């Protein structure tokens, strides 16, 4: 209970209904029957030992757009996100039932290799985690190197492209050989984004990527997410409802492991259908 209270207090202190910023959720980007589906989640339940963290979730995440997952602490946002690249399997004792189709393919099919899934579905974590023994450029290129890419010219080009995409190039182009951990917190997080982008994943998962960042760094990352959505499917977990309103086209609201409501961001924030959603987005929690 106190967790929920805290999360509400964190995300909307004065409890206004956050107004989506212009352009972030235009009617054209609303999900429609025609929109391509990146993830088709069917009756997904996830357990940690005996506790059930995700309860019978059905959800279709559209491709080439930004989908936000919101909800109070402990409601299962991270768990749901990590199921999308099979990261939750690394937690001892975690198991799931139900199905996730990625572009029509069963993510958990018997012949599907989790490492291949994670190459196609990149991830950015809540705390930045560059590899401390690698330089800035080595951090960005580590995924390609793992895939056996050796071509110098190609690597250099990818390095620059990825750092430009994550809006870090101008800040680091003269110090590419310095340790990744020598950067500031916000720069490190953008380095991690560049690292995830360097392998050109089809989908990018972000778990509260700005929660440890100052407002300026947060704005940079949000700009970046905006820029990405023309080419990428982005799923972002956020604690911060204003952020969800600013960056996403669609929003899923989770509460106690269940998906309560999913729809265009504008509708979720301005005109929620479910009273629990209404209570959460307006800062009252009922």
């Amino acid at each position, binding site marked *: 209970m106190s967790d929920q209270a805290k999360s509400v207090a964190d995300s909307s202190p004065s409890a206004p209904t956050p107004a989506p910023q212009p352009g972030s959720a235009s009617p054209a980007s609303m999900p429609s029957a025609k929109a391509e589906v990146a993830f088709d989640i069917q009756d997904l339940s996830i357990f940690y030992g005996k506790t059930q963290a995700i309860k019978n979730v059905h959800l279709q995440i559209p491709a080439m757009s930004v989908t936000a997952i919101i909800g109070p602490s402990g409601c299962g946002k991270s768990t749901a996100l990590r199921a999308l690249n099979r*990261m939750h399997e690394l937690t*001892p004792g975690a198991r799931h039932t139900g199905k996730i189709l990625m572009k029509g393919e069963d993510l958990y099919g018997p012949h599907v290799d989790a*490492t*291949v899934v*994670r190459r196609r579905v990149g991830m950015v974590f809540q705390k930045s*985690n*560059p*590899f401390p*023994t690698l330089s800035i450029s080595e951090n960005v290129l580590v995924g390609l190197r*793992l895939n056996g890419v050796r071509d110098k010219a190609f690597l250099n080009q990818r390095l620059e492209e990825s750092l430009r995409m994550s809006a870090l190039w101008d800040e680091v182009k003269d110090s590419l050989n310095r340790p990744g951990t020598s950067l500031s917190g916000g720069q490190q997080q953008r380095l991690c984004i560049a690292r995830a982008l360097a392998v050109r994943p089809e989908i990018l998962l972000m778990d509260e990527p700005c929660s440890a960042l100052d407002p300026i760094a947060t704005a940079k990352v949000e700009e970046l997410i905006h820029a990405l959505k023309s080419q990428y499917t982005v799923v972002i977990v956020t604690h911060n409802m204003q952020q969800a309103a600013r960056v996403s086209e669609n929003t899923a609201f989770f509460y106690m492991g269940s998906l309560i409501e999913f729809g265009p961001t504008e509708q979720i924030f301005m005109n929620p259908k479910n009273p629990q959603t209404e209570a959460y987005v307006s800062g009252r929690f009922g």
Partner: protein
Amino acid sequence: MITASNPSLPATAADLPEPKRWGDRLFKTITFLSAAMVGVGFLLVAYVLIQGAWPAIKLYGWSFLSNTHWNPVTDNYGALPFIVGTLVTSLIALLIAVPLSVGTAIFLTDLAPLWMRQPLTSVIEMLAAVPSVIWGLWGLFVLMPWLHDVPYTWLNKHFSFIPLFAGPIEGSGACILTAGIIVAIMILPIVTSVSREILRSVPDLQREAAYGLGATRWEVTRIAVLSYARRGLMGAAVLGLGRALGETMAVTMVVGNSPKIHASLLQPGWTLASVIANQFGEASGEIQRSVLYEIGLVLVGVTILVNIGALILIKSIETPGSRRT
């Protein structure tokens, strides 16, 4: 609920009583005394060793370190065979023990099924507590005869043209290599358990970063775990090295106790620590006794030098940026 109207309670932090400082001072004094005791202890040991070794130091000077003879009849003593024996057995022990320990530690922290980790860890910690002399007995009666009959005989038959494996091999199997292997087995548990602690301290977020890029288990171990922990692991190796240099009883039982320098690992040798244990009781005459003190002094010196060298090596491990790409 505390209210300002209660006169016995301070209204602001400025009204709080002065913090009590005597606890701080006591704590500081106790920690200082403990640290000082370690220093005093070391000085005492050094004093006793130097005093005992003084006649030998005066007699032989620096040549003691480079003299390869050990002849109690003519009182011609040198430390070089023992220095070489100590360094070579320790090096063999490290070469065998460190990869095995780190491998075991990786298995225990990242690969073994959950139910297996705790029992295995306990077994390893128990092995670390087995006394040296027990390992020596086991080495003497079980390991050494087998080593002689199988690997040594084979090595000597097929590879005796390599000086390292030249014969003739002792019938008992006592040799430098046997001592190295026994010491390796003895330092395995401690190096493993320290390595395991170090690997456990690698943040899971590092592992997840690698998994998130689609790394396989081995790749995660390589790019996220081992590289993060490499300095700590080298520290674990140095700890093992310290033990190896000073290991006494078990080595005495299997090294062959021969004060000669051979190129071959299959020939008997001797170490600084084991010659002291072996000869001190029956040292005849003042000179021999003093020489053994000096051997002790040399052992301390070698240990310190090797540790300093290892620390410099660890410090100098390249950090990104020190290298051009």
